């Protein structure tokens, strides 16, 4: 291996690592706020990438239908609850949020897709179609179980992952897609070729991380999420609704997932089930940070990216084996550094 290859692998690793870092942050966020280990994070990556790919082909993405379908189910659940509680006043808002808006987005996508709008508009449209699925998933799968143990929530996560992967197959088909890069620019820096795409990925990740930081430090909703993460009951007592916190954290996670998918789509071919492995690599990073620390999780994710890049150079067939075996030394290290006092659940 010469310096050129080594540097190239570092660039490659950091580019992928930046995406894993985003996912790791979303996973830590969701876990801290809702105690949900969010396995379906990866499905949002795939959905984001494949939705953008459909739009670029001028086709109506399957997610638009999925959004309407999800909206109808949530509306049905909410309506039943509203009628049971006698909260008739909520009905217009339910109809608007879960039926009118998804229908409007579906119509918009139907109208806009064949016209192949500019890339920025396509990305915005793709996000608008995928992100609302986040809070819907929370409402349907997790909210009724908000007080269940971490273990039950984890099993639910795996079930949601299964269902969403299957739906991905229905709505996107079995073929993979790769979108054209955001930028074809190449810069020469010594022996290294820096691609515009990897700068885009790293820049966007950094921008998103800064945006999240500002959100958590300076907005009332960000503070509400932090409060919930630190003390669920305390936050509830001062008026932070756990359901709101849950939906908001899932919205953010879906946004981060879909954006990661859009960023990764020009680098690698994405299939309906590719998200799982990408999301799990974010997980390995998050576990390095103990599912608690944002900076260590991000650093762990970069490490995963680098390890993957070098593994695919040295032993490409064993790439996944090496990346996922990394978790074992990490767990050994954690098991000797954490003195865990048994939490009581159920």
């Amino acid at each position, binding site marked *: 291996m010469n310096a050129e290859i080594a540097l190239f692998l570092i660039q490659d690793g950091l580019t992928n690592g930046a995406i894993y870092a985003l996912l790791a942050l979303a996973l830590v966020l969701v876990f801290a706020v809702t105690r949900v280990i969010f396995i379906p994070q990866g499905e949002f990556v795939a959905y984001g990438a494949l939705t953008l790919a459909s739009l670029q082909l001028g086709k109506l993405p399957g997610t638009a239908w999925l959004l309407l379908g999800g909206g109808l189910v949530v509306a049905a659940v909410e309506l039943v609850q509203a009628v049971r509680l006698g909260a008739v006043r909520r009905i217009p808002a339910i109809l608007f949020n879960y039926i009118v808006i998804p229908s409007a987005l579906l119509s918009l996508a139907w109208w806009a897709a064949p016209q192949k709008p500019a890339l920025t508009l396509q990305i915005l449209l793709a996000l608008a179609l995928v992100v609302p699925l986040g809070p819907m998933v929370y409402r349907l799968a997790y909210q009724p179980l908000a007080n269940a143990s971490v273990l039950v929530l984890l099993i639910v996560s795996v079930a949601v992952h299964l*269902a969403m992967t299957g739906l991905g197959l229905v709505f996107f088909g079995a073929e993979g897609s790769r979108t054209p890069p955001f930028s074809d620019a190449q810069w020469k820096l010594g022996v290294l070729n820096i691609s515009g795409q990897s700068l885009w990925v790293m820049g966007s990740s950094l921008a998103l991380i800064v945006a999240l930081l500002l959100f958590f430090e300076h907005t009332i909703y960000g503070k509400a999420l932090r409060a919930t993460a630190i003390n669920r009951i305390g936050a509830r007592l001062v008026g932070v609704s756990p359901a709101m916190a849950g939906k908001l954290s899932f919205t953010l996670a879906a946004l981060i997932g879909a954006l990661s998918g859009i960023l990764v789509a020009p680098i690698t071919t994405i299939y309906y089930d590719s998200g799982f492995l990408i999301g799990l690599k974010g997980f390995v990073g998050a576990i390095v940070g103990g599912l608690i620390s944002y900076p260590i999780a991000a650093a762990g994710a970069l490490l995963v990216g680098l390890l993957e890049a070098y593994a695919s150079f040295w032993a490409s067939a064993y790439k*996944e084996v090496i990346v996922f*075996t990394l978790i074992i030394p990490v767990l050994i290290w954690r098991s000797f550094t954490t003195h865990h006092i048994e939490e009581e659940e159920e």
Partner: protein
Amino acid sequence: MSRARLVLGVFVAFMLAAPLLLPEFHVTLLNYIGLYSIVALGLVLLTGVGGLTSFGQAAFVGMGAYTTAYLSTAFGVSPWLTLIAGLALTFAVSVFLGFITLRLSGHYLPLGTIAWGISLFYLFSNIEFLGGYTGISSLPEINLFGLALDTGRKFDYLIWALALLALLSVDNLLDSRSGRAIRALKGGGLMAESFGVDTARMKIVIFVHAALLASLSGWLYAHLLRFVNPTPFSINAGIEYLFMAVVGGAASVWGAVVGAGILTVLKQWLQDLLPRLLGQSGNFEMIVFGVLLVLLLQRAREGIMPLVLRFFPAPKKQLQAAAPELPRRTQPAAGETLLELTRVRKAFGGLVAVNDLSFSLSSGEILGLIGPNGAGKSTVFNLVTGVLPLTGGEVRFRGERIDILSARAIVPHGLARTFQHVHLLPTMSVLENVAIGAHLRGSKGVISAALRLERAEEAMLLAEAARQLERVGLGDSMHEQAGSLALGQQRILEIARALCADPVLLLLDEPAAGLRYQEKRALAELLRKLRSEGMSVLLVEHDMDFVMKLVDRLVVMDFGEKLAEGLPQEIQANAVVLEAYLGGVK
């Protein structure tokens, strides 16, 4: 004959006749259900009973399958030897994985198993001598006493014989001293540790047990198909196994068979129906599985078995009147110093919760430790029982230092405790709950339990539990579910459980909290009776009325320090104590 035995008999008869009568397709389904049941059984034990989870069981199935496939084709080793090799390999790997993940909090094990499951799947797919994605074919058939099991029909008997053995052994295990310890894991483990159960070891035991069952299923699978490739050992298969255990539920080991049966038939049907419905091919059944699993966890977290078990009321535990008594320790002479705290100190960061507290307790007395809320009483209790480490000072029991010991290591010295918030296993009978207290007075482990070699000891343990229940006056409720008792009775149950440990000193943490007047009187009555029988008691309490009428001596705490010590009358007249409780008049 009980209804359960009758159904079991019908089931065995059906299994004997089925391979002879059913069409090939149905025999194949039965074979798969048997294979899956064995894996799901491990998860019923691990997840349903023990509260731990693995998504990586398919990887252990793969280990069993690939070990035999490789050894029997490359070296012509007999399948019976490769079975042992596969189990040995699985044992080593699962002990290692269990050791590194089970010490961490609950969710690291499932996450670790996902990563490990994926990793092993890619390993199977890429290792050349394991055939890569194409796998290994032409495995030898299994010979049983000269009979070649070369058809699915013949193989069916082997699968179901092993499945039944596995079911019965796990059923036996759960109904034993070790089984009670395993069932106590789910509540968090503190209670089990307080009666001497090594919960970390118990967790590894059930994890390894589940892994070995998976490996056995893999060995059977490989020789049934006489071909292996990586696909059936993917993480998705691991998820399906867990799904089977959740569908069946943990109320009975038969949940594994029910779950495996339902899922296998449902999958077959959906794989037929959905692609036709959607007009394209693919594994669409996973959508239905995912949605069903979420609904099941939301609506019926206990699975299907509780509904089935309604028709099979659990038989009452048979108590052998003739069971010999367990050996008892020699009680100390009255007046001997038992517990001695010397300048005990506990600081949480900057907050000093217990500040150089010293007092002692003698044999045969009831000592009350009282104080207003936040005085540090419960902290002292946790320091004495080994739940919290001391910041400074010493705790001695009969002259030996116990402050350096863990909660589990303190029990054998003769201290037994109750909990402020009762720690019971609500669905287990009162008798079995109490028998947990006698854990350290038995010694038989998992293997003898599975083989029913520990019945003599088990009878002694249960007889002791029954004796202690009679002693505290709960003899009539011993076959009821612990969760159905009133709070006052549950507290008394905890005392019976503590007595089962054959203690020298009983440590009671606010036993009167939340009790009604009559219940308090009954409790005080019981404690007086125990004292008259020579038992010593340390009582942490803040119900003054209850304490004053009961104890021999009092230690009063406030803000982590000892305020006063003496006879109840002296304390009642003590000006400093009155000020602490009622507020000073300035």
